[in-house]
C-alpha cells in the first residue's frame, strides 16, 4: 500500500550547501525514493519564493508530508512549520534534514558531503512517512508575577509591572527592601545620594495597590512551569503585629541587647528588636530571635512593656503562603568579596583597613560615624589609600572584572577630599570609566588637589611596627619604581561576587550558573534577562557585576519579559511530549524518578503513570527506560527512529 505523498525540498543556501553538495544529484536521488511525488531544489528555501514553492505543492499536489533538506532546525524549523500550516498542512508533518551544519559545513570533501546528504535525506523521508499530526496546546497563564529580591532591580521590575496594571508579589529576605544600594552614600557619576533616589521608589512599592510586599520572607519551594508556577513562601515571624505597629521606634530605643548590624557592614550596632536603617520599608521592626533575651532565657520583655500600641507578639509564628504565578524574576543581588582570605591586604588584621561597602557606611550621614570619615580611634586620617581590583581580575580569586570598582574608587577619592584634609592615593591597574558621564567624572576628580593616581596594583599593606602607620606597597609602573606609601586608612575596593547560597537558589528556581558563579542568562548578548527555564527571568547583579543604570535597565527588561507572558494570557505547550499507554503500563514506576523535570506522577487509582504535558520537555528518558514500552515519545517514537536509522544505513 502506498504511503503518504511526500515532497522533498533541497536548499542551496547560496553556496553554503550547493558549494559542496551536488544539488542535482541529491534532487534526483530524492525523487527516486518511495512515496516521494515531487522533489525540488532552490537557492534559498527559507525565502518567500522558496516557501511559496512548498505551499503551492501542498495545495496542488495534495502533499501529506514535507521534507526540507537545508540548515539546522534551530535556524528555520519555525519558518517551514509556519509555511506548512499556512498551506493547510499540520506543521508536525514536516521533517528537516540538516545538510549544512552537519554536512556541507564540516568537510572539504564534496563527494563525501553529497553521499552524507543523500543518507540524511533518505533518513528524513523515512521518518516523515511515519509522522503523525500533533496539535499545539495552550494553557492559561496566571497573571501574577513573583519577584525575588527587593533591591533596586527587583523594585524597578515590580514598579514597571504594577504600573502596567498587573499584580506583583515582591519577596525580600531582609526586614526591609532596598538591598545593597540602600547602604551606599553618594552614587556615581551624578553624586546623587543613594537613599534620596531610592527611598521614593521603596515607598511607591509599599504603597502600590498592585504590589504585595513580603519582607523578612523567603521562597521555600518552586514547582510548576511557565504560566503556572506554584510557589511556597515562608513569611518569617517578625514578632510584631504589623497592623498595630506605628513605627515609633520606642522598642528599639529601650532594648538592652546590642549586636553588630549587618546593614552597617560590621561598623555599627543594632538592637535585638530593630529596623535595619531609618528609611526602612516597611518601617516595622523585627525581633532577632537568636539574640533576643526573651527567646534565650524567657526574661526581659522590655519592648512589650514600652510599646504604646501594644504590638509585640512573642508567640507569633511563621506563615506559609502558597501562590500561583505566571512568571518569576530572580533579582537576588550580590555579596562583596571578603578580603580577609588574602592576608597581604591586612583586612581583619589591621584596624582601618576597610572594604568598599564599609566606606559607604562611614561616608553615609546615617551611618555609624554620622557621615564623618574617621579612623577606629575616632581621629581623622591624614592619608588614605584606595586599592582597585581586590579579589577580581586575579586568577588567585576571581578572574572577571567587577566593573564598578574603578568608578567607585574615583568616587571615594572625591568623597574623602570633600570630608577631610587627607591626601588620597588611588592605586589602579586600569581606569575603567566606561559609562555615560563616567569619563567626565573621572576627569573632574583627577584634577582635584591632593589626589594622587598611581598606576600600579596595590600588592600589600604592612604596618610600621614603630609608627603604626599602614604602609601600602605598590609599583608606580608608569615610572617603573617601587613605592611604599604610609597612610592611615586603606580602602579595598573588593569585587562583587555571587552570593554564598547562589547554588541553592539556582537549583530552587531551575536556573544554571555560569563558570564565574553568577546566574546564567539565555544568551549573553541578546537575551540577558531570560534563562533556560522558560518563565524564570533574572535581573541585576545576580547575573553579573554592574552599576545602577544597567541594573535598572535589566529590571525593566525583566519586567517586559514577565509582562510578555502575562499579557499573552496563555502559553503554548509543544506536543512533542511523552505519552503513556494506560493498557501497557504495568505500574512499575521506573520512569518517575528518572524524569529530570519531575513531569511524571503516579495515578494511584488507575495504577498507571501520568505525564504532565506542560512540564514534559520531550527528552525521551522515560520512553527509553520503560520495560513495557508503555511510554512513547511523540514525534520521536521507536517506529520513527528505527525508520531514520534504516534510512541512514541504506546509503
Amino acid at each position, binding site marked *: 500500500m502506498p504511503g503518504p505523498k511526500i515532497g522533498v525540498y533541497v536548499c542551496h543556501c547560496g553556496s553554503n550547501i550547493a558549494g559542496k553538495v551536488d544539488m542535482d544529484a541529491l534532487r534526483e536521488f530524492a525523487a527516486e525514493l518511495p512515496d516521494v511525488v515531487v522533489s525540488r531544489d532552490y537557492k534559498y528555501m527559507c525565502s518567500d519564493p522558496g516557501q511559496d514553492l512548498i505551499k503551492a505543492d501542498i495545495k496542488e499536489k495534495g502533499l501529506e508530508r514535507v521534507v526540507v533538506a537545508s540548515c539546522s532546525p534551530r535556524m528555520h524549523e519555525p519558518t517551514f512549520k509556519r509555511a506548512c500550516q499556512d498551506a493547510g498542512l499540520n506543521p508536525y508533518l514536516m521533517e528537516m534534514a540538516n545538510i549544512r551544519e552537519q554536512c556541507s559545513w564540516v568537510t572539504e570533501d564534496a563527494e563525501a558531503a553529497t553521499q552524507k546528504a543523500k543518507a540524511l535525506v533518505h533518513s528524513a523521508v523515512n521518518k516523515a512517512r511515519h509522522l503523525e499530526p500533533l496539535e499545539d496546546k495552550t494553557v492559561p497563564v496566571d497573571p501574577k508575577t513573583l519577584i525575588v529580591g527587593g533591591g533596586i532591580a527587583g523594585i524597578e521590575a515590580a514598579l514597571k509591572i504594577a504600573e502596567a496594571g498587573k499584580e506583583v508579589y515582591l519577596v525580600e529576605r531582609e526586614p526591609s527592601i532596598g538591598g545593597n544600594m540602600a547602604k551606599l552614600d553618594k552614587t556615581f557619576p551624578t553624586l546623587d545620594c543613594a537613599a534620596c533616589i531610592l527611598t521614593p521608589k521603596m515607598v511607591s512599592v509599599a504603597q502600590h495597590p498592585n504590589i504585595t510586599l513580603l519582607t523578612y520572607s523567603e521562597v521555600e519551594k518552586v514547582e510548576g512551569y511557565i504560566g503556572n508556577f506554584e510557589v511556597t513562601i515562608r513569611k518569617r515571624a517578625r514578632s510584631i503585629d504589623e497592623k498595630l505597629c506605628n513605627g515609633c521606634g520606642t522598642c528599639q530605643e529601650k532594648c538592652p541587647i546590642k549586636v553588630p548590624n549587618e546593614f552597617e557592614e560590621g561598623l555599627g550596632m543594632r538592637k535585638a528588636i530593630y529596623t535595619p536603617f531609618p528609611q526602612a520599608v516597611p518601617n516595622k521592626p523585627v525581633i532577632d530571635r537568636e539574640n533576643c533575651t526573651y527567646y534565650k532565657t524567657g526574661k526581659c520583655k522590655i519592648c512589650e512593656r514600652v510599646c504604646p500600641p501594644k504590638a509585640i507578639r512573642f508567640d507569633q509564628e511563621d506563615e506559609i503562603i502558597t501562590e500561583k504565578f505566571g512568571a518569576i524574576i530572580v533579582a537576588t543581588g550580590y555579596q562583596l568579596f571578603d578580603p580577609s582570605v588574602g592576608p*597581604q591586604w591586612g583586612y581583619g588584621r589591621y584596624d582601618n583597613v576597610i572594604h568598599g561597602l564599609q566606606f559607604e557606611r562611614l561616608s553615609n550621614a546615617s551611618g555609624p560615624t554620622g557621615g564623618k570619615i574617621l579612623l577606629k580611634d575616632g581621629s581623622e586620617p591624614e592619608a588614605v589609600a584606595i586599592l582597585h581590583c581586590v579579589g577580581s*581580575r586575579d*586568577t*588567585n580569586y576571581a578572574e572577571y572584572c567587577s566593573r564598578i570598582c574603578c568608578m567607585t574608587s574615583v568616587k571615594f577619592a572625591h568623597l574623602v577630599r570633600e570630608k577631610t584634609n587627607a591626601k588620597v592615593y588611588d592605586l589602579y*591597574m586600569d581606569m575603567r570609566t566606561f559609562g555615560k558621564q563616567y569619563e567626565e567624572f573621572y576627569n573632574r576628580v583627577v584634577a582635584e588637589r591632593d589626589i594622587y593616581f598611581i598606576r600600579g*596594583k596595590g600588592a600589600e599593606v604592612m604596618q610600621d611596627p614603630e609608627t603604626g602607620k599602614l604602609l601600602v*606597597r605598590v609599583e608606580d*609602573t608608569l615610572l*617603573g619604581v617601587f*613605592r611604599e606609601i604610609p597612610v592611615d586608612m586603606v580602602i579595598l575596593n573588593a569585587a562583587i561576587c555571587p552570593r554564598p547560597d547562589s547554588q541553592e537558589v539556582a537549583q530552587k528556581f531551575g536556573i544554571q550558573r555560569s563558570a564565574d558563579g553568577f546566574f546564567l542568562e539565555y544568551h549573553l548578548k541578546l537575551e540577558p534577562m531570560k534563562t533556560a527555564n522558560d518563565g524564570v527571568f533574572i535581573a541585576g547583579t545576580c547575573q553579573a557585576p554592574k552599576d545602577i543604570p544597567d541594573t535598572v535597565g535589566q529590571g525593566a527588561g525583566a519586567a517586559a519579559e514577565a509582562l510578555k507572558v502575562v499579557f499573552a494570557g496563555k502559553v503554548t505547550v509543544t506536543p512533542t511530549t511523552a505519552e503513556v499507554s494506560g493498557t501497557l503500563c504495568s505500574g512499575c514506576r521506573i520512569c518517575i524518578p528518572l524524569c529530570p523535570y519531575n513531569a511524571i506522577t503516579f495515578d494511584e487509582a488507575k495504577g498507571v503513570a501520568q505525564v504532565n504535558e506542560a512540564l514534559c520537555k520531550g527528552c525521551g528518558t522515560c520512553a527509553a527506560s520503560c520495560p513495557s514500552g508503555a511510554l512513547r515519545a511523540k514525534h520521536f517514537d521507536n517506529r520513527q527512529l528505527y525508520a531514520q536509522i534504516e534510512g541512514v544505513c541504506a546509503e
Partner: protein
Amino acid sequence: MEQAEAKTLEVIRQDAFDPAKFLEELDAFPGVDKIKNCMQCGVCTASCPLSHEMKETPRKIIEMIRAGMRDEVLASDTMWYCASCYACTVRCPQGISMAEVMYALRTIALRTARNLSAAFYKTFSDTVRRYGRMHESDLMIRFALRTNPLSLLKMGPLGLRMLAKGKMSLSVPTPIRGAKEIGKLYDKVAELEGGA
C-alpha cells in the same frame, strides 16, 4: 668582574622587532608560562623584597621581554637580585611564575655573564659536581679565589667564628659514594642540552 652595561632605552626600531624568538627561548623552560598574559600591574615589583635595588623592576623586565629586548634584559642586574622568595609568584593575578622567569634568565645569562653572582652559581655547581654535596668552606674559598681573594680577609672574622662554633670545618671534604653518578648526571645533562 664588571657588569655589562645596560643600553639606554631609546626608540624601538620596528625592523629589529622580533620578540617571538626570545619568548620561545623562555617557553622552553618548564616553569615559564603566560608571559604574554601579563597585565603590567606591578604586584611582582611591589611584593619583591629587593625590587627597590633593581634598575629595571621585575614588571619592567617582563615588558622588555615582550618587546624582544633580549640583550638589555640579559645585561640587566635585576635577575641577580632575586632571592627566590616566590612572593611575586604567589600574588601574580595572571599566575605567572616570576621566580621561574628569573631562574630562566639567569641560566641564559650565566653562559656569558661575568659578575659576582654568576661566579657564585658556577662555583656552587662545580662544588656539587665534585663532592655530590655542598661544602661551605670549600665553596667560599673557591669562590673567593675565583672572584676576589682579598674578600677572604673580609670574611675572616665571621669565618673564624663559624669554625669556632663548629658550623664550618676546614677538613678536606669527602665525596658521597655516588659522586660518580653525579658526574654522570652532569654529563648527561650537558649531552641532552646539546649546544644550548
